């Protein structure tokens, strides 16, 4: 039975939700609307305007109210602190700037994250620094710009890479980090504890303990710990110390320090092309249609089609076409694929392309086994290959790994 048939059948499993059920919900919601309109909070904005208060009077009242609230909170220590306060404090902020120090003074990463006014992630920039080198990754609305040590700037559009960038942003973006951790706590495998300092002026700490293999979702990891330091007044995150458990002791592997909140970034921060010198070669692969378009095909169908088309191009020695179907993020990768893999074997015949299967975590996409007859140095052989195929960009699927299994 094909996927489409099962999906169609599932779609036909429909329960009748009758008029009475909808009416009961609607009646309840009508009552809530009545209460909302009647409640003082529901009409607060209009009341202020109708009373003729000036903006400055409103602002003064708000400042007094805030001062009273801060005073009350200070008196009661941080017992009233809830993670939601930090989430709410960062809600309206669109720019975040932070640094990662592996040890005091040893700057390892510097990152900038920007949201649009609707709260949608727009751009991320991470500079990776060593004593001698600087590499930069910029992700801007789906397109990644990468400048490594070589004099080459790469532009690519790749879903797997985007997923990694978004995962990083979710982990260390102050706007979402704690909300994300709350979700993870609910799922299990990690614990979170809010520290209550004796002095109300001291920072609040939130300690997160990760069981083994729960720190990253795509890599096995030892047990880890993160200690968030939170400003007791603004409730914004000041820093995150990352530690790993080694020989029953937590050892620091670095600290993220949050520098600015809501400060506009310099123009061009998310455009590497404006920064690189004229001798840097720009490889823009975003305009090259990598892989094969999925269209109406199922994931399995498009995965098998990608492998079939790749092998066909390889057998025809059309290496440019094969590299394009395979997919690459930089011209250097394409050249390496052509020189290292494609030219090393003459494909004589594709004997079989097997059914795609889902790989075990952390791998994504589908694994496609196939058997191929090829020739190397005049000797004919039969080999089993396994391709990992996944979505690349804009609905097109491409090859991620190619391994010979025998």
């Amino acid at each position, binding site marked *: *039975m094909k996927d489409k048939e099962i999906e169609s059948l599932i779609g036909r*499993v*429909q*329960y009748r939700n009758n008029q009475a059920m909808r009416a009961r919900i609607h009646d309840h*919601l009508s009552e*809530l*609307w009545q209460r909302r309109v009647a409640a003082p909070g529901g009409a607060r904005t209009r009341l202020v305007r109708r009373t003729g208060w000036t903006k400055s009077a409103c602002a003064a009242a708000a400042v007094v109210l805030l001062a009273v609230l801060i005073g009350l909170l200070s008196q009661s220590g941080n017992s009233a602190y809830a993670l939601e306060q930090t989430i709410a404090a960062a809600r309206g902020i669109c720019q975040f700037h932070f640094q990662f120090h592996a040890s005091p003074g040893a700057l390892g990463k510097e990152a900038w994250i920007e949201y649009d006014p609707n*709260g*949608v992630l727009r751009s991320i920039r991470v500079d990776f620094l060593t004593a001698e080198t600087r590499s930069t990754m910029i992700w801007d609305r789906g397109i990644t710009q990468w400048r490594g040590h070589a004099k080459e700037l790469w532009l690519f559009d790749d879903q797997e890479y985007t997923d990694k960038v978004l995962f990083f942003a*979710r982990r260390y973006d102050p706007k979402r980090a704690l909300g994300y951790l709350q979700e993870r706590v609910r799922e299990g495998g990690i614990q979170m504890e809010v520290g209550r300092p004796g002095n109300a002026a001291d920072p609040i700490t939130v300690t997160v303990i990760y069981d083994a293999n729960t720190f990253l979702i795509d890599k096995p990891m030892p047990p880890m710990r993160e200690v968030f330091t939170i400003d007791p007044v603004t409730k914004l995150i000041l820093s995150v110390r990352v530690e790993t458990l080694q020989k029953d002791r937590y050892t620091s592997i670095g600290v993220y320090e949050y520098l600015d909140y809501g400060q506009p970034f310099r123009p061009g921060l998310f455009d590497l092309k404006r920064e690189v010198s004229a001798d840097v070669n720009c490889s823009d692969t975003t305009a090259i249609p990598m892989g094969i378009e999925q269209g109406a095909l199922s994931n399995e169908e498009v995965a098998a089609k990608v492998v079939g088309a790749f092998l066909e191009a390889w057998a025809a020695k059309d290496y440019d076409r094969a590299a394009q179907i395979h997919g690459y993020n930089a011209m250097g990768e394409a050249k390496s694929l052509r020189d290292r893999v494609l030219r090393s074997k003459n494909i004589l015949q594709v004997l079989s392309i097997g059914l795609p299967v889902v790989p075990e975590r952390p791998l994504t996409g589908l694994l496609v086994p196939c058997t191929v007859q090829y020739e190397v140095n005049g000797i004919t052989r039969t080999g089993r290959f396994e391709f990992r195929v996944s979505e690349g960009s804009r609905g097109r699927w491409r090859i991620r790994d190619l391994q010979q299994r025998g």
Partner: protein
Amino acid sequence: MLDDHLLWWRSKHGSRSAFDLIYQRHVDRMLSVALHLLGNAADAQDVVQAVFASLVETPETIELRGSLKAFLAVCVANKSRDLLRRRRLAPASRAHVTPAAGGEPLELVIHSEQILRLREALRRLPYEQQEVITLHIHAGLTFRAVARALRLPLGTVQSRYRYGLNSLRTELEREDSL
């Protein structure tokens, strides 16, 4: 047709008519999602009611980043999951369908032996697989939207969907081969 985001903006700022339009536009789909996840009409009604109530009661806490449909569907899924956790219901026990409050039975729109078998097979799936299948097929969300909403990697969502579909295929084909 007014865009959902505009409707939501108007509803958030006090427009009852905008809220009613949102309700009419989405309530059937959300009930369908809840009925599939909970298998119980009374619970489904409670969950959907609570989700729409949050739009009325605490609109300022809602930060709409994607589509309203996706937001509502994920709220329904989250509340359904919470409800099941609270009751410590094993997925298998959801197979027992209780009559709704008011005595209405949970009634399938299409009756056929194959649909009934599939319904039972769906209920035997692990909850996380059923959730992804329901959000994709009954809520009409793309895998990417499901992944974003459930804060899971896209690959995990696709794997859960794939495992779920494979289990359903096995169940259906096994019974077909008898």
